[in-house]
């Protein structure tokens, strides 16, 4: 079970990926972070398709940090797919984006996003936000043991 990922980070910016990973590691919030660089990769990972068809699909990430502006398949589409599939809709999805567009915010919540965070420009603030999100969803919050998940593990 070593291959179990705590967090799926969907982020096209390498800098952002590095900064976020740095913060999460530093705070010891995640053992395994899988980073997807675009929407397609994220979906393939979650649904064990494409390059990830060999992956065990009962291993769902505990948290998905999702950027919206992504190459190939954008974040909103990724969110829709994840939240419309019974197997994956229980996964907490936190939108972390630079966008301050209200449209994105509204869309995100409508599609079932669990949280919406605007990435602060100031790194100090960024660090605080990432830390709080990680702590909350991975430590504070009690995740449900979903039936699908249980059924999937049984299978």
């Amino acid at each position, binding site marked *: 079970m070593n291959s179990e990922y705590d967090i799926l980070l969907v982020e096209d910016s390498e800098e952002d990926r590095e900064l976020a990973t740095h913060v999460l590691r530093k705070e010891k919030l995640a053992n395994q972070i899988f980073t997807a660089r675009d929407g397609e990769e994220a979906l393939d990972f979650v649904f064990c398709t494409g390059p990830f068809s060999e992956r065990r699909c009962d291993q769902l990430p505990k948290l998905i940090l999702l950027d919206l*502006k992504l190459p190939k398949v954008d974040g909103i589409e990724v969110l829709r797919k994840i939240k419309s599939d019974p197997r994956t809709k229980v996964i907490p999805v936190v939108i972390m984006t*630079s966008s301050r567009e209200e449209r994105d915010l509204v869309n995100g919540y409508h599609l079932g996003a669990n949280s919406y965070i605007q990435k602060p420009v100031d790194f100090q603030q960024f660090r605080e936000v990432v830390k709080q999100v990680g702590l909350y969803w991975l430590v504070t919050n009690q995740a449900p043991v979903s039936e699908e998940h249980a059924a999937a593990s049984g299978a």
Partner: protein
Amino acid sequence: MNAQMGEHSHRLGGRGSCANARPSAAWGAVGSGLPAIPCFGFPQLVPHGYCYLWNPWIVWLHVVSDSLIALSYFCIPIALVYFVRRRKDLPFDWIFLMFGLFILGGGTTHLMEVWTIWRPVYVLSGVIKALTAAISVVTALVLIPLVPKALALPSQAQISELNQRLQGQIAEREHAKEALQQTLRQAERAMSDAAGQRILVAESRYVEEVLQESQDRLQGIIDAAMDAIITIDEKHTIVMFNRAAEEMFRCSAKEALGTQVHRFLPVRFRAAHSSHIRNFADTGTTNRAMGALEPLCALRADGQEFPIEASISQVESAGRRLFTVIIRDISERRMIEEQLRDQAQILDMSQVMLREKDGRILLWTAGAKKMYGFAREEALGAISHELLKTKFPKTLTEIERHLETSGTWEGELTHQKKDGTEVFVAVLMVVEQPVPGRAPRILEVMTDTTARKRAEQSLRDSQARFTGIIESAMDAIVAIDNDQRIVLLNPAAEKMFCVTAGEALGQRLDRFLPERYREAHHGHVKQFARTGVTTRAMATLGSVRGLRSTGEEFPLEASISQLEVGGTKLFTVILRDISERKRAEDEIRELNEDLERRVEERTAQLQLVNRELEAFTYSVSHDLRAPIRHIDGFTKLLVEESAESLTPEAQRYLHRIQEGSHRMGVLVDELLDLTRVGRHGLRMEATDLNVLVRQVVTMLQPEYENRKVEWKLGELPQVMCDSTLVRQVFQNLLSNALKYSRPRPQAVIEVGKTSDQEQTVFVRDNGVGFSMKYADKLFGVFQRLHRVEEFEGTGIGLATVQRIIQKHGGRVWAEAELDHGATFYFTLGRAGGTQTSAPAAAKGAMA
């Protein structure tokens, strides 16, 4: 009597012949002894006395007899003459005079008899006899034819007999009355005296007979009377009721007799009537007219009341007082009087005057007074055409001549009322039927025709107006009759169809239609006539076409109306040549289409621009922020994790990099705020500005934590606005106020509203202020009035404020003085921004 006279004369003559033969010896013995004298040459003749032998007894017998006869005869003519002169009415008066002469002659012969006893004047005596004979013969001859005529006259005897009979009747009546009274008295006595009964019956039978006869006669007179005659006794019981009364009161005498006369009086008169009769009885007057005090009324048996005229008389007989009332029914007379009065009133109400031929007014009715205003006393005696200032249609003489020949004249003329206004009058003059001894008068009946004249005038005026309108109308107007033949064509129609009215009148309307439309058109007009709708537009725009006489077709617009004039149907068609309009419309349509196309293009362009702008802001917010964050992030990591290996100089540089990236972040955020104001619509809601201000003051607390700030928060209004945006306004303004008052040991920041109607809100500080000469740059994007070293800032805050305020339809402005603080004012449009939402939203959508 005449016969006696003739006989006498004859005897006289016979005696004369005897006288000639007899001596007159006795004469001397009897007479005065006068000597015998010869007469007329017959000396041998002896006086007549000789014939009597002068026997004195015979002589004197003759002398006395003859003298008496002569005397009598002489008296008779005198009486006759007196009689004839006194009785002018006497028929045949001349015969009486002849009798007079004849008797006079007779008298004279007797006188001569006396004379001839003593003197033998036989010649004279004979002559006189001859004269008397002549007169006698003439009288006799004249008298014979008169006898039948004279016989026709009632004789004295007859007259006196009549008189006697009348006297007899009166006496009889008196007697009967007396007898009646007596009988009555006897009857009274008989009641107690049965012994005298037999006599009484006999007597009363006789009396009854007499009485009956008299009463019958009286009854005849009474029954024949036209008036009702009723006799009542003292107790007002009816004792006599004649036939006229029966008719008048519709009650038979049988029924009326013995009843109270009151039954024939209306109840209201009864009491008064009794006392009147009593009073009348007291006066003792025998006869008097009744009803001096008030009009009298009587009551028929059937209850109908009617007016009467009555007189009453009283007779006292045998101690009993009887009242006889003679009554005349005057209902009819009343009715006629009333009719006459009504007629007089009607006449008085009508506008009539009666005048002499010369115009002098004799009768002036109330109607005339009402019409002209002249009172009766003003009009009477005045000359009518002078009083009324008559304007005649022809000369007065002509009218008078017409009146004389035909008896009437009828015409219209103008009169002037008393108040000076003129009236048109239709007058009928009628000459009165001639009455002897009076010049015929003229009756004038006047009718005020002013209103009619005015109506006629206004009708003429309105006709003229309509004609004017039709003539000057811009549209063609064509009227057609039921056969669709043109009866009217105005100048505009002449121009439109290139014809003259003269050519077109009487022609069919369809000559102005292209042939292909004609049949349909006929049908339409007929159909329209059947509907009874008065006006209707013909066909739809553009589908009707006209035909000019030049052969040119053109589009027209038409409406049709129908009306009945004098029983015939008239259609009026109003036509407008719309070639020009069609052209203009086509042009407009083309222009519109072009415009629409261009608007579409422009809209597309704008939409593109909008999309680009959106994409730009999106990328600004998303893509520009990321690098800044990265710069900041990695710089921080470098400072934190490798600080000991960096020189202080390198650390300072890294600090500068961090500052720059921070400023860049603020700039991007503020720019996004600014563009967001434009890109979103307003969400208007009732907002308490006081709450907003307190929220902002709390939010800004980190900025003034270590400073002395005095907040003066006045009462602000409740307004309709987008609270998020207005919060932004307060945030920017208060943030500025804090920033620019930083050099002051104690900042004083005041928020309030002015007392004007626009609910102007202001934010005032005691900061460094600014020079008003740069006031126009204050709200420009990236415009700053201070250097960054003095006061940090991007120059976007006030631009955002202005954008938000303008979006609400309000105004923002500032007043300041360098070093003496600044005041920013803003309004949110009228009525707190409620009315500004629509245009502001539209503007927002465009941006």
